[in-house]
């Protein structure tokens, strides 16, 4: 396909460059023929219909589109989908299993770490990368790690509490 958008018409120009990519998203290999200019965020949203990854700004500031690219937070609106070829992407949809939420998801709900929910997926994935690296962060370390994600609703205090909640639960689980 030349476009991941709905109903590609027959009269697409022949000169449109197309590349085949294979990207592992939430553990599943996804292959598609895409234009190089397609942003990873749009590949995920329109191509894979994983709409939990949101697009908030144009300038790589807000972090609503944050995914984990090979385990590290990346703003997917500033990565070309072709750049993710052969790489591993995790979106918010990959955080929970069918039966169990990630402790970070539970923490966000329990500590009222979200309101409109738009920044939440990116915020949670940044938090996940932090806790993967540092299972016992301080409040300052959490604020620092989340400073690439903007939230307009919560004032961040409950987000910090949510991450602390999750960290504690994860430590308790791993201590078992």
């Amino acid at each position, binding site marked *: 396909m030349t476009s991941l958008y709905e109903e590609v018409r027959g009269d697409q120009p022949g000169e449109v460059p197309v590349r085949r990519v294979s990207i592992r998203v939430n553990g599943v290999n996804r292959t598609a023929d895409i234009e190089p200019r397609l942003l990873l965020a749009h590949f995920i*949203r329109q191509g894979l219909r994983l709409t939990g990854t949101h697009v908030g700004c*144009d300038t790589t500031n807000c972090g609503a589109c944050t995914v984990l690219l090979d385990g590290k937070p990346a703003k997917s609106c500033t990565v070309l989908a072709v750049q993710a070829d052969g790489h591993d992407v995790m979106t918010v949809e990959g955080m929970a299993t069918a039966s169990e939420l990630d402790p970070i998801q539970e923490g966000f709900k329990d500590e*009222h770490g979200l309101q409109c929910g738009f920044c939440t997926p990116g915020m949670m994935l940044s938090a996940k990368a932090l806790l993967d690296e540092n299972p016992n962060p301080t409040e300052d370390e959490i604020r620092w790690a989340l400073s690439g994600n903007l939230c307009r609703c919560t004032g961040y205090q409950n987000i910090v509490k949510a991450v602390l909640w999750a960290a504690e639960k994860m430590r308790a689980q791993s201590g078992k």
Partner: protein
Amino acid sequence: MSLDEIKIGGMGASRRRVEDNRFIRGKGNYVDDVVLPGMLHMEILRSPLAHARIKSIDVSAAWAIPGVRLVLTGEMMAARNLAWMPTLSYDTQAVLATDKVRFQGQEVACVIADDPYIAKDGCEAIVVDYEPLTPIVNPMQALAPGAPLIRDDKENQKDNVVFDWQVGDKAATDKAFASADKVSKLELHYPRSHPSPIETCGSIADFDRSTSKLTVYMTTQAPHIIRAAVALVAELPEHMIRIISPDLGGGFGNKVPVYPGYVMSILASILLEKPVKWIEDKTGNLISTGFGRDVYLKGELALRKDGKILAVRMHTDSDHGAFFSDAQPSKFKIGLMHSAFACYDIPAAHLTARGVYTNKAPGGVAYRCSFRVTEAMFFQERMVQAAADDLGIDQAEFRRVNLVHDDDFPHRTAFGFLTDSGQYAKCLDIGLEAIGYKDFLKQKEEAKKRGRLLGIGISTMTEPLGAGNSRAYDILGIKMFDSAELRVHMTGKAILRTGAKSQGQGHETTWAQIVAHELGIPADDIVVEEGDTDTAPFGMGTYASRSTPVAGAAVAMVSRKIRAKARKIAAHLLEVSEEDVEWELGRFYVRSAPTRGVTIQDCAFAAYTNMPDGLEPGLENVSYYDPPNLTWPFACYIATVEVDPQTGVWDVLKVVAVDDCGVRINPMIVEGQIMGGLTEAYAMASMQFITFDSEGNCVGSNYMDYLLPTAWETPGFELHEVVTPCPHHPIGAKGIGECATVGGPAAFVNAVMDAVKDTGVRNIDMPLLPDRVYEALTTKKDISGFPPVKTDA
């Protein structure tokens, strides 16, 4: 035995939010998540100039791009009588520019294509020839003699004045000023700010020729108003229009107005008979959609030397941009600016307000406030602090002298509002205690000896929420009531729909708690739906903190209607007369034999299976609530700061908030609202502003220049509560969504001003960027009353 209200998720329960279950899984459904078969994509071409005549538009290259399906220009819109649309303030606004562009970012053309990338290519291929005109970027320029006329499209418009309005008692005010011991004056600018929810605006219009039905998914806080507006603008029958506002990624007032992009997507869908999606980019959102504030104040307080305020005089010049498209009650041209000083006992007040057109984006929306209340309370609290300093009276004491006393309610304010309840002094005392006021004053003196600058700022205010009663409040003539419809099913489960629209406030959670409180049906058994005009009862939407005061009251009232009917059914089931039936949460019982009773669920079942003779079957009802008055929450916010004298950088040391929003439905959510509001307050005080250079270029057109604080800069907050129930609200609630945004900024600014007070500086206008603080410290001069643009002279 009565139910435990907290256990069933009733009033006062910090019930975890229902909507979070989808949001934390990434399963929210925002407008951009909606995909319809055959959907096309629209992008808008915007003016690069603030003021220019359009000489020609050449769209041929755009049409030539494969995948482009439609290119719309003002000329084509004009041919369909759609180039202009009415605003929510009885003005007109260009949908697509025809004659000239009047602000940078104005919509000039749009392209509809197979995908948004191609649509953007199409926009880039359009060639517009502009003849630049002199731009006007502030009220001073707009009002200057000989200023170019911005709205030359309007027949009777001879200057750039939108309105000239006044309220209050001029004679009594003049008299009080004549007898004052001291007059304290202050000039302030509340800079232009943008609500800037992370999600931008957007719509998907889907016109179905076969049914003549138009369905529009839209980022709107007020779907029913939009339906009415679309019916009027597009001349479509209202019953054939369905507006669906799905999950909103924040609103804050930005998603109240009707935007050209919505209208264009609708026209495009009608012309193409395909769904057309428009998702605004961030730059488009910041430079063209409803901003907030941009008001200049000249304020004066008449003072007696013991600290008593005798009168207040205010004059505002507000910058409305190129089109007067504020969404606000039609009677009040500068919103509820005259709610200023409502928490103080002041004999006389007079406000004159002038609105002007400039070559800036239209708006003046109620950005997280009840129609200019943010400006009103900021001006109030800055004037109060300056007055206290001018008299040499402690700022806390000065407030205590002037605050309305608990036993003076109901209290008529100097501008004529009626406030009903509150414990103002108690809130102030709790705040002072929590911040450690006396100790801090000592610390401040100690620090001064070592060259450190500490400051403390207080802001106390009551704000008017819940617009409003139908006598005084309407938008375009539509009275500002709200609604709730409750359907209790046979098994005692229920669905509730309201005319409000949550944007993160958690209505799906809290509305169910009100029903649980009124009926004893567990909150988990009640589903809440909003935002679909085909299913929700007519309501005015969510903004201006009106949902709990108005729609929330409707939820209580409709629950009571249901309870009244259930009582008849209960009497029938218990075989006693209705007068012998008593109610306790979730259950009717016989007064003389309390063990004989039926639950609300029993009544629900009977409503469908065993109703008494003469009673209509079913257990459903709807309520339209016209509030008797506004509600008046009170708040006291106190911040302490330290200013770095060498850089002007200031850090927040501590923030204390004491809120009295009446009865709290869900304390967890209330606190979330307060912390979010305080963050916006901090943001406005410190960094969040949109300014323009002398050419009318928007400085702040993206998140690199329009600064929103991150988790790192945002301070922590300590919250306290006082509860004074609202006497006229069915559940005693007053509303909380915006208090902290409204009252918060002055606390931060007052704190910084307190820190620099020894220099003699009385004011630095927001935002208190480090350079402005440093300049004030070194020049010992106010930075007051002018727009925050810096250029090399």
